């Protein structure tokens, strides 16, 4: 398993380099201009000067290698310095956002907490709803519970979050006034009342995303349980005279969890990626909002860096999912 993991990690390096280059080309070759968002009152000469100062006009390959060097060498050193306090970071050069003229990594670090809070919590909530829902739905296939569960997850899966999000705001923020419609990213939890405030402001985005996640995972859970419930080994377990609870929760569930756990692991990068629409609707301003604003503003360094980090996370979590599969399923061996 260890050699397998190491081999996969080594193989990931050319993959990621290739991905980074492709992302770079896509971003660069698409028609985007960092000055396009400026008012028309700013004359073309000034725009040209701005582009010049941003380095937009350098040859593409040079821009790419500049970025690559910063991404792979300077930024990790800055990260190291931030963590250890050692003075190892080189002066000056960092990946700079066109829009804010500040280091992209600092933007990402600033956005990470609220994204992890909101999207991460919603993922956990989604899983906590999905697993029992999927298990009971499968065990009582075609029951009222299953029919209702199927309907709810179909709705949750197909109704877009920009609709559910706004619906939630209109009901719970405008009409009932229970929760705020705008997420306060500067809120710090220090005591019980401030924790209550945090729960109140997080509950709507978490539920909107959580329902979506839950519908997706509960479908996987149900399908996987159904696959296993009809297996002979379940009959064997019953023939052994085991308690039904043991049969379902030990024999069936443990085997059904294998594909579900890998699906959950594969989706974790999406947690870091944030949720562009939900973040926008609730003004959470996390990674998703950072990315969409950067795309709209032609902010190539941000788009490039955020996408590259996603690519790294996706590659890593794919590996993790494969390793987990090997751990959970004794039939799989990586040698």
């Amino acid at each position: 398993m260890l050699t397998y993991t190491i081999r996969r990690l080594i193989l990931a390096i050319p993959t990621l380099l290739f991905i980074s280059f492709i992302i770079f080309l896509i971003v660069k070759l698409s028609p985007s201009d960092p000055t396009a968002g400026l008012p028309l009152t700013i004359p073309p000469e000034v725009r040209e000067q701005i582009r010049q100062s941003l380095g937009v006009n350098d040859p593409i390959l040079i821009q790419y290698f500049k970025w690559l060097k910063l991404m792979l060498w300077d930024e990790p050193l800055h990260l190291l310095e931030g963590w250890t306090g050692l003075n190892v970071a080189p002066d000056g050069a960092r990946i700079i956002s066109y829009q804010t003229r500040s280091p992209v990594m600092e933007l990402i670090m600033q956005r990470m907490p609220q994204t992890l809070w909101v999207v991460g919590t919603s993922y956990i909530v989604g899983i906590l709803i999905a697993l029992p829902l999927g298990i009971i739905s499968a065990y009582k296939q075609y029951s009222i519970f299953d029919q209702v569960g199927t309907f709810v997850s179909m709705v949750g899966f197909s109704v877009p979050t920009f609709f559910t999000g706004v619906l939630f705001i209109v009901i719970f923020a405008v009409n009932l006034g229970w929760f705020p419609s705008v997420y306060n990213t500067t809120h710090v939890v220090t005591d019980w009342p401030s924790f209550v405030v945090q729960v109140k402001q997080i509950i709507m985005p978490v539920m909107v995303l959580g329902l979506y996640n839950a519908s997706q995972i509960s479908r996987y859970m149900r399908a996987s349980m159904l696959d296993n419930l009809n297996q002979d080994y379940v009959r064997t377990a019953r023939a052994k005279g085991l308690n039904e609870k043991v049969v379902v929760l030990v024999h069936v569930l443990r085997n059904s969890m294998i594909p579900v756990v890998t699906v959950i692991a594969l989706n974790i990068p999406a947690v870091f990626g944030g949720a562009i629409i939900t973040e926008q609707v609730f003004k959470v301003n996390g990674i998703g909002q950072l990315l969409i604003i950067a795309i709209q503003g032609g902010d190539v360094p941000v788009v490039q860096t955020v996408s590259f980090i996603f690519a790294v996370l996706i590659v890593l979590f794919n590996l993790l999912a494969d390793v987990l599969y090997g751990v959970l399923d004794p039939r799989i061996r990586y040698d």
Partner: protein
Amino acid sequence: MTRYSLLLGATALVLAPAAALAERGSSGHLNIIYWQAPSTLNPYLSGGTKEVESASLVLESLARFDDTGTMVPWLAEEIPTVDNGGVSEDLTSITWTIGDGITWSDGSDLTAADFVFTWEYCTHPEGGCAQASYFDGVTSVEAVDDGTVRVTFDAPTPFPYTAFVGSESPVIQAAQFADCLGARAPECTDANFGPIGTGPFVVDEFRPNDVIELSANENFRFPDRPYFATVTFKGGGDATAAARSVCETGEFDYAWNLQIDPTILSGMEAQGNCTVVTAFGTSVERLHMNQTNPDPSMGDMRSTVAGGPHPYLTDPIVGQAMSMAIDRALIVEIGYGAGGQATCNVLPAPEAYASTANDGCLVQDIEGANALLDEAGIVDSDGDGIREYEGTPMRVLFQTSTNAVRQDTQALIKQWWAEIGIDAELRNIDASVFFGGDPASPDTFQKFYADVEMYTNNFAGVDPQAYMANWLCSDIPGPDTQWQGANIQRFCDPAYDELVAEMAATADLEERGRIARLQNDMLVQSYSIIPLVHRGGVSAHASTIEGILMSDWDSELWNIMDWRRAE
């Protein structure tokens, strides 16, 4: 009039007796939402409205424009003029006197050196300063003494109130930005995100594209202001959500740029929690009629002067009929609501420059338009419902940027034009491409590979001289200039060029007004440009906030120090 007397006068007028009792911080906390979030607080590094307006809470300039477009001395003692000797007789320099006892929020004195530094900062060749045009023609900024700044121009400048006037060119602190010149500007993240200013508030925390936390400046020159102790300046979401948070949930006190369906906004206002405010500047939604030939068969000569004139849009009769067919009031009602007024002028404001000669277009007259065309012999000769102009069927390609209101407007205009026998093919282009200015793209508004296009343009500040110079013959975009140039409809008239030159040599404000109106009438009556809607900024504030004087000539938040919460 001096700075103090004017401000006190204005305050007394607006705030009624209670103002005298209020003191700094007495109104507590103010929540502002800008649905587009500021990405930096250094307006020299980003020219966007959101950055300029958020920075205006912290950074100030020598003079600002109030809600009527009148210049108000701000950091300056008074507005320099030729009469009071502040502006030199030859119109090549202006000398500002800085008000007494003004300090930065860190307690240090504001001196003329800071202005000199600001000029150096923005004109550094490697800096990519977004507001460089405010220093156009400035040959030097010098500190006559600690309290006096002289700005010298390379030519007579009848309207010298550009550098250090308005929210776009505020003064920044030399001490803070000393190491941030030119290419090093992006390294000064702390300074860019938390500039030290002279304004009513100081930055406590700045999160780019997200939120700004500010609190009252302890060293502010007016001991009783600002009335708000702290401000949260939140960004993100969309215009509807921002309106909702002020008018329905009451979480925010002020929301900016509410370009939403007018019926939705008026419905929200009717609930009584908020007041919608508008301010009209110089933005005009207009149609440009291509004076050159955009026929694809022309190849590289498309839409260039060299390619020859347009087969029929150069005839004012055609443009006039097309203008008469349009019901501007309906366009305003459907798409703009409080944020728009029908207009027949390219230059609708300030009032001194607004012509009244063209107001006939405010009433739709399809019959008249048809009669006009018939009379001119432009008729439908082959019976297909489309008129022919000297044998060329009048089918126009009508393009604009992708935007719901613009597409609605396009559809209405297409229908009206159909009624006068002109067929329009509609096209819309993503705004980032349309306004992107990429010389390689065929879809930019500068290339104008269409017969008609629609968008909004305006000018910053109150002086139209530079704006009206857009329509010089020499400013026509073309391949030789990488399609740069502001004369988008390719209008060219030597008489107009003469007026531009006359304007540049005239200092008298009344005379300048006459020339500007003349220029406006000449443009509009050539029917190469058809003004549609005078667009204003639409914002909403909680009914409990007093003292808001919304201005489109400056930052909307220009007088935030006078804002207060009603008891």
